[in-house]
């Protein structure tokens, strides 16, 4: 970029890429699997405590209403009911739920005076069974005074008075409006020779993991301490905020994690569910389980995905180089605002895609409406930005008759330009975009498919070849949660990951992570990295998850960060352990620690035959034979390390936010190329082929990475073709069940998503690893839109909104045919 004076902090990479490795880079079978395959995974609903009650909520049937009165007497009288609490009763024992916006938008786990979306809890019940709790909910009599329901953010943003959701924040539903401009946008547009404009729409979908959110809480009145079992992540990062909500000192709350049956972001930080179960536990003096049912999860999980309207312009110069982009975006945030516009911070990390675009403007309006609030869903808002960028590229190509492959290639950031600052101030650490594109073209047999496409069209068949080349930012840092605010509020800058590694006296290792399995492979990954580093047998390593009492600093998965961050922490910890092993062995073998090396589970003296000690022997010595070693502190008993790894590369944003700093620099890349055939009479889209080439730097486990790519692609197919939370004008959610909210089944996905990799290691992370957990869903939607548009070129149909359901697609074709 122009400003070469911007400082790039020195790399803290210790383990260089390209080493000869024994475990890293192999398809090691997952260590998590045997217990999951035998039905012995311990998920939230598997937690059972003696005397445990079951909770249910009474959900609001209204999108927006005042609560006039609540009569719980009949519910309370029902045999088997132990407690019924209204919002007011709950508010006497709890404060607002944690919110990361500034000023915060007050959300309660149970609504007090006003309900703001269908499904919002109005009362909560603890009973001997979930059945009875639900019976009780139906016996609660609530009088509501309906208020105008805000369904469309474009209208809601102009509402005043009764239509305003949070009057305490002012007489408007605009939660935030900010204009961010980076570089000389006006100048670039003035010198542009061609400009393409599009209005684009990304509809609301959501993660919908097969397991919902759940918690089992206990309250010990003797110690005044809560214990909460919950399938949340990030509890060792921000879990302490739940103690604040529960009105107890932070050390009076212990959060015990359970593994999660899928999250995709939506269990990033569960707040409502644990607080509901905890407050009922306190009220009843008994353990209480609250597990969302599917309806609760769809209506009120606090984690719907992005819901945006874009107006975009892309400027090209006379050489067909993209020089600037500007977009106005209205984002429908729903009823609350827990993560502020962090989703747009996320998007700004890669808003210009893999291209050399010198300036960019984003005008962001976040609007509150009577829907479930947005949270996290695989991509966290940057998947939308990918869709928008690629749509604009395709729009330019189709409008100006440019070849989509060559146009992209021409505009790519070149391999030699890394590290590369984009206009927003974020840095792309490394990349090789032409290599990824070339590999995809070759794997797909692009020219072959173009020929088949021509032949098919002669037979009246409509085949389309899609192309999307987009970014896969990884390893989020903390600044994105506040840097877009007018005032920073809580301007945190840490997003660390900690691990504890303990070698037991027999030489086996236990790794303690700070966030649980949620469908990723943290145990396998941590095992592989530690085995690599200490030359251990993976069978001698086990992995566990810390509760908050024992946990150290750790953020958890999210923003495709966990592998990179855990690897960093394990490298630190195993360095400590290695140092101690060398020290012990050197003493026992009468050598200098600097002469030692690890080999095959043993420490040996370099070049001295037979002078070796196994890790097991050394561990026994370290634990039980203190007097065999000198009386200096470095020989003190034990063989363990707790280490925290901070984000490998972040800098502060500038005061004026003209430079957001380096906040999401570990930049992956992907090229997705689907081939679809469309039945133009029914609008049905069928996949004939699908190639996905990713560059996630050094790969720890190709098998599990491919699993993420394919799984993410399936979710991307959902967002592109099938999935949408459909809210009616009155704010009712019309498809709050799995029969009507259409998750792709095996029939809706390609039979073979062919995954390829290009490896461009990061210069900043251990071994050069980049994150890759979200990629599929960040690439599939624009690729599919592109394929559909390509297939329907004879009709001139534009894929400017998602999801392109068969009905919608057929509608576009019908319209186009009528116009022809």
């Amino acid at each position, binding site marked *: 970029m122009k400003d070469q004076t911007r400082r790039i902090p020195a790399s803290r990479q210790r383990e260089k890429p390209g080493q000869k490795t024994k475990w890293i880079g192999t398809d090691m079978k997952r260590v998590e699997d045997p217990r999951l395959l035998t039905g012995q995974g311990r998920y939230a609903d598997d937690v059972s405590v003696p005397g445990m009650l079951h909770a249910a909520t009474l959900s609001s049937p209204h999108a927006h209403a005042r609560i006039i009165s609540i009569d719980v007497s009949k519910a309370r009288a029902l045999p088997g009911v132990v407690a019924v609490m209204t919002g007011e009763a709950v508010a006497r024992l709890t404060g607002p739920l944690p919110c990361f916006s500034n000023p915060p938008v007050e959300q309660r786990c149970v609504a007090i005076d006003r309900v703001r979306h269908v499904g919002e809890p109005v009362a909560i019940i603890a009973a001997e069974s979930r*059945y009875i709790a639900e019976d009780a909910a139906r016996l609660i009599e609530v009088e509501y005074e309906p208020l105008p329901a805000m369904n469309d953010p474009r209208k809601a943003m102009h509402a005043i008075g009764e239509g305003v959701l949070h009057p305490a924040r002012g007489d408007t539903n605009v939660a935030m409006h900010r204009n961010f401009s980076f570089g000389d946008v006006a100048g670039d547009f003035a010198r542009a020779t061609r400009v393409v404009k599009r209005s684009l729409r990304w509809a609301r979908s959501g993660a919908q993991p097969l397991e919902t959110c759940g918690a089992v809480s206990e309250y010990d009145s003797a110690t005044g301490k809560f214990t909460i079992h919950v399938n949340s992540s990030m509890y060792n990062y921000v879990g302490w905020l739940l103690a604040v909500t529960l009105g107890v000192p932070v050390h009076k709350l212990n959060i015990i994690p359970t593994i999660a049956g899928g999250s995709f972001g939506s269990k990033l930080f569960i707040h409502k569910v644990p607080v509901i179960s905890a407050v009922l536990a306190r009220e009843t003096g008994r353990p209480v389980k609250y597990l969302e049912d599917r309806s609760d999860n769809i209506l009120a999980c606090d984690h719907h995905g992005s819901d945006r309207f874009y107006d975009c312009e892309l400027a090209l110069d006379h050489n067909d180089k993209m020089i600037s982009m500007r977009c106005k975006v209205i984002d429908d945030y729903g009823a609350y605002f827990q993560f502020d516009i962090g989703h747009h911070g996320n998007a700004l990390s890669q808003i210009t895609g893999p291209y050399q675009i010198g300036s960019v403007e984003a005008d962001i309006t976040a609007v509150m409406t009577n829907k479930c609030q947005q949270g996290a869903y695989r991509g966290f808002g940057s998947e939308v930005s990918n869709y928008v960028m690629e749509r604009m590229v395709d729009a330019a190509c189709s409008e100006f008759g440019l070849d989509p492959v060559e146009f992209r290639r021409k505009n790519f950031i070149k391999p030699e330009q890394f590290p590369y600052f984009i206009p927003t101030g974020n840095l792309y650490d490394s990349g090789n975009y032409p290599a990824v594109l070339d590999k995809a073209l070759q794997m797909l047999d692009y020219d072959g498919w173009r020929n088949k496409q021509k032949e098919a069209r002669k037979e009246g068949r409509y085949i389309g070849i899609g192309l999307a080349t987009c970014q896969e930012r990884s390893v989020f840092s903390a600044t994105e949660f506040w840097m877009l605010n007018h005032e920073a509020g809580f301007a945190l800058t840490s997003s660390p990951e900690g691990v504890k590694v303990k070698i037991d006296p027999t030489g086996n290792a236990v790794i303690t992570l700070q966030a649980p399995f949620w469908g990723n492979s943290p145990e396998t990954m941590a095992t592989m990295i530690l085995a690599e580093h200490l030359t251990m047998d993976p069978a001698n390593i086990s992995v566990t998850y810390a509760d908050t009492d024992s946990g150290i600093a750790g953020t958890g998965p999210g923003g495709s960060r966990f592998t990179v961050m855990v690897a960093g922490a394990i490298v630190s910890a195993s360095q400590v352990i290695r140092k101690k092993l060398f020290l012990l062995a050197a003493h026992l073998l009468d050598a200098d620690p600097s002469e030692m090396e690890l080999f095959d589970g043993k420490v040996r003296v370099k070049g001295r035959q037979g002078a070796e000690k196994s890790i097991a022997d050394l561990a026994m010595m370290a634990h039980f034979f203190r007097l065999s070693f000198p009386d200096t502190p470095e020989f003190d008993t034990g063989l363990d390390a707790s280490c925290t790894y901070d984000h490998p590369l972040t800098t502060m944003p500038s005061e004026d936010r003209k430079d957001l700093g380096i906040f999401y620099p570990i930049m992956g890349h992907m090229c997705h190329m689907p081939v679809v055939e469309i039945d133009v009479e029914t609008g049905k889209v069928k996949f004939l082929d699908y190639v996905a080439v990713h560059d996630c730097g050094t790969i720890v486990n190709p098998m599990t990475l491919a699993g993420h790519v394919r799984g993410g692609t399936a979710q991307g197919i959902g967002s592109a073709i099938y999935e949408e939370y459909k809210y009616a004008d009155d704010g009712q959610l019309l498809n709050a069940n799995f029969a009507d909210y259409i998750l792709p089944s095996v029939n809706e996905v390609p039979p073979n998503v062919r995954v390829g990799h290009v490896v461009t290691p990061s210069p900043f992370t251990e071994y050069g690893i980049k994150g890759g957990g979200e990629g599929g869903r960040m690439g599939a939607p624009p690729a599919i839109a592109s394929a559909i548009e390509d297939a329907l070129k004879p009709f001139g149909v534009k894929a400017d909104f998602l999801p392109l359901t068969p009905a919608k697609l057929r509608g576009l074709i019908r319209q186009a045919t009528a116009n022809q």
Partner: protein
Amino acid sequence: MKPWPFEYHRANSIEDAIATLGRHGEGARLLAGGQSLIPMMNLGLATPDLVVDVGNLSDLAYVLVEDGVLRIGALATHNTIMEADASASACPMLVVAYHSVAHHTIRNRGTLGGNICHADPASEMPLVLTLLDASMVIRGARGERVVAAGNFFIDAFETEVEPAEMLTEIRIPAQAAGEGYAFEEMSQRKGDFAIVSAGCRLSIRKGQMTNVRFGLTGAGAQTRRMSVVEAKLEGAGPDDRLLAEAAELAVVNSDPSDDIHADAAYRLDLVRTMSRRVLAAAVRMTAKQGAL
């Protein structure tokens, strides 16, 4: 998402089931395979106060051919019917259509009897049975009556079966040799209820179509056999233009409404496409069978 409380009675005979229903009156529901009723109960959309479980009346799980009629006991599961040789030989259209019905696990427990008594307008089997000229045997306290499929389905979720009656058998006349038939549907996902489905049977004698049966789901509020379309085809030669006109006629006679999965315009498009496809497929099949 739990069912409301109810009393449970496991019937040990048809008579017991009917007597129990009669004693209880409104609010009692028969439970066969439960694949329609239980989801509705879990969602709170059905709240019977008495559930009479007829699922163990295994005497009613038969599928057999007798005197040119496929007789299906009301408690035969979809998979039993789908996999029975009797079905394949007597009513192959039934088997073909079954490939669009739900998924294996649902078909393991779901019964045809329960399915048609539920009478979901998006369900495939009410249409198929109507086109196959099926008749239903209904048993009540006063004895048995037989109702033709055309009269059996009164409206969406409403059939001829009275609250204290029980469907006991479905009778389908064997399809004629050389007959052409086809069933097609468009659904969100394979196995989901159809947005629009179309079915057709016909024979061709001396170059003319005869015994034409044609109908649709999703073309209006309920499953419909379209006699105007049948009349247009009956006695005519099966040329493509006529089939296209027949499909247009189906469109004109459809009156779908918007719902969350499809607007009316889309359904009309599907009516046209599905109609044309099943008509053409049925004609092709007769040709293949050499009946021309």
